[in-house]
């Protein structure tokens, strides 16, 4: 059984637009793969039970919990992490910028998961109500903020993204 566990599985995947070919143990979690193998430590582990949402990443366009996925499952997939959103504080994604402008974070630990979940929401629903924002973020726990300024941040990001959108696209 030990031998099976330690046998490598070869995977090819794209992370934040970069192609990787890696050999991984079958039991290696996607979160640990991203953090330890690729050095992408912006993906945080808050519970390792799939509840808190801190480890949220985007896999093939869907937000997923990287603590509940094995790296070996990612063969052929495209993964986006928080590091893929911006590489310069002067060129933040509108969601990141809005969190900065509206004090949408305190300790910052849940923030990458929050930002990725909010971004996914706004891509699907560009004008969410406060209740829709809270519903969309219901799987992400923040222990610091009480969520008020997070909701404000997401509303502000929606406005920025709407005004940045090419004319004629938004209703």
């Amino acid at each position, binding site marked *: 059984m030990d031998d099976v566990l330690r046998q490598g599985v070869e995977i090819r995947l794209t992370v934040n637009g970069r192609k990787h070919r890696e050999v991984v143990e079958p039991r290696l979690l996607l979160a640990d793969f991203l953090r330890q193998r690729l050095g992408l430590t912006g993906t945080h582990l808050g519970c390792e039970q799939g509840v808190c949402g801190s480890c949220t990443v985007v896999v093939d366009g869907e937000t997923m919990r990287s603590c509940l996925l094995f790296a070996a499952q990612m063969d052929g997939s495209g993964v986006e992490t928080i590091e893929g959103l911006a590489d310069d504080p002067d060129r933040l994604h509108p969601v990141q910028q809005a969190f900065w402008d509206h004090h949408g974070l305190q300790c910052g630990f849940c923030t990458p998961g929050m930002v990725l979940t909010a971004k996914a929401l706004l891509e699907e629903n560009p004008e969410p109500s*406060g209740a829709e924002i809270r519903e969309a973020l219901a799987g992400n726990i923040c*222990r610091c903020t009480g969520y008020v*300024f997070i909701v404000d941040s997401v509303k502000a990001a929606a406005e920025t993204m709407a005004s940045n959108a090419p004319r004629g696209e938004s209703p």
Partner: protein
Amino acid sequence: MSYRKQPKLLGARVRRVEDPRFLMGKARYIEDIELPGMIDAAFVRSPFAHAEILSVDVSEALAVPGVIAALHGQDLSGRVKPTVCDAISDGWQSSEFPALAIDRVRYAGEAVAVIAADNRYLAEDGAALVDVDYEPLTPLASVEAAQEPTAPLLHKGWKGNYFYRDRHAGGDPDLAFSNADGVLEIELATRRHGGIPMEGRGCIAVYDPIERVLTLWSSTQIPHLIRSELANCLGLPENRVRVIAPDVGGGFGPKSHLNPEEVAACVLAMDTRRPVRWIEDRREHMLACFHSREHYHKARVAYSEEGEVLALSAEVTVDCGAYSVYPWTAALDPGMSLFIMPGPYRIRNFRCETLAVATNKCPYGAYRGVARSANCLTIERAMDAVADALGMDPVEVRKRNLIRDEEFPYTSVSGFVYDDTSLIESLDKVCAEADYEGMRERQRLAREKGRLLGIGVVTFIEQTAPAVDEGVPINFRYDSALVRLDPSGSATVQLGTHSHGQGHETTIAQIVADQLTIPLDQIRILYGDTQQTAQGIGTFASRTAVVAGGAAHIASGQVRDMLAERGAHLMEAAAEDVELVDGRVTVRGSGTRGLSVAEVARATYYHPELFPFGWSPLLEAAGTFDAGHGTYANASQIVLVEVDPETGAVEILEYHIVEDCGRMINPTIVEGQIHGGVAQGIGGAFFEELIYDEQGQLLTTSFMDYLIPGPTELPDFRISHLETPSPTSPNGIKGVGEGGAVAPYAIMAAAVQDAIRPIGNVFVNELPLTPERVLGFVDRAAGRTDREARRSG
């Protein structure tokens, strides 16, 4: 040439300077640090709440490929001192808390052995193969079980299962009770829960055998205090121990302790000469990161027909678990309760007895609003009970008892000297903001339609940056700041405190910017490394804005004076004739532009020949601020809830807050602190409970069964501010970190009771108000009238 005058930054809603690294995923939390040769540790934890350890066999674990080392309690016995954290009191019983249990385990989850391996997966494989032979003992899983006459004693040499018992009295309670128009008795319970930061605990220990320096990276709020006790446990001088707290993913109190796991990791690092990392998982966190909040109160209240509370007599029992923790001791909550219970009210007769019971549960530590939330619950529920007994409005009863403005400074019955606050003003203001009269009318109309709306009102006073001079092993009155101006005229400020969400890289810079009159982006705030900062205490107890903010204000004021003196010399002016404005030293009224801070700094460092021989070329100062016994913040809150009597669900319809933390450095950050504190308080009021069974097994070890409020459970809070400056702290600042967490237990209990009043009278006295408990209160309300809160003849 003109330039814009730099606006004063104290009080400005400045955007946080530290945010980009968090937003971009580039922060460095403990688990993000990679060191060459690093190995991972995993702990073997006791499955029993109480047992003798007969033997520990690590041979199978050591045989796992990749496992490098193993330690258990006997390996450390005699080599590492256990933590002994004693309160100084006649009613105290001392005990030892070993890093790894030696011959006995006292709570389920206690660390028994540790395995280090090439990675955590392998360390956990090894830990699963450690064979521990236990002889189970009677588990003492509750205050009652621990106090049974036949209960085994938990620690050597004890005469009963308690860490601490004490009493305090002021005035003449007996006389007041005998003369009162009415006396009522209440009992209250807040169940065990905790801070539960999103990032668990963790550390990396590194030993350099050549320099003989031990470095511990730890996710901690208190690096200096950790250094002191680590050095003590390991027998090292403190100049050979360095503690670094990197970015910390939430503190809230649980990260203000020395963890036994950290001591064990240090020993592993010294033995293996490899960096050893320990990152707990959530299950370990729930089992072994110190819990809080388990209070049981009994109180008798004497009152007059006018609604004045004449006397308060209370018994406070806290389930403190298995060990006394560093640096707080097990007297933390019970000791504080002896003094804070009368709160903001003019109660002149008070008696309190307190008991810290030892049980076979996880040790008890600090959590945001230590002892305050439970004591606020008791005194506020007492006010509500008096109001009900007399048929008065709860706001009116509070107004009759609150300390009046003209009475400040007010010496409380327990000896606090409360200075300026806005107790009555805050209550008036929150009533206006919430339209309290209108809210009562809406409640009446809703009740006519069969809806159960309830209103809760709370007022409290909170000692922020508190310290006591007696009874404690460490007195936390001060903190430190080193302010250093470099030759380019930019400033580096090193704090003895730590920031883990509070935004001190911004707020402390705002204070320093006003002193040095340089732009915010020319100021860097550093903290968290004992080798780079002056001795400090840490961040907890709503203290950093007061003590570190005060220290930074004082130290940067000294640097400002040095700049002025040197600038005056360069301009051949008298020091008293120059001033620092907008980053320039100018001669007052001269109309010239003077010299920039950078010009003066460069001249000072690189051209000492321009100054009299002997003038220091260093533009730096170390400052401390001693806050004495602290500053006094206050707040009033009103909540409107709706109870569903079929499901027991409670919906928060409105939550109004008027807070007064003195002068605000940054109102946005103040609001964020309040939001977060109230959210945690609501968690404790409705959702969060660490439930042990009779065998001392924790039943709530995941976020599936320990519920933390999410975005859909919490309302939009409506906050407004009052600013009554502290008369004692620089800039009039008071603390605000904990305030939000103080009131929700009391306010939600009041609101739920008020909501179910149409069904019947019941005294809501036990939290959290889970649907099950709410339904229990609804049933009791329907079946009979209030039993606990009664007016005695």
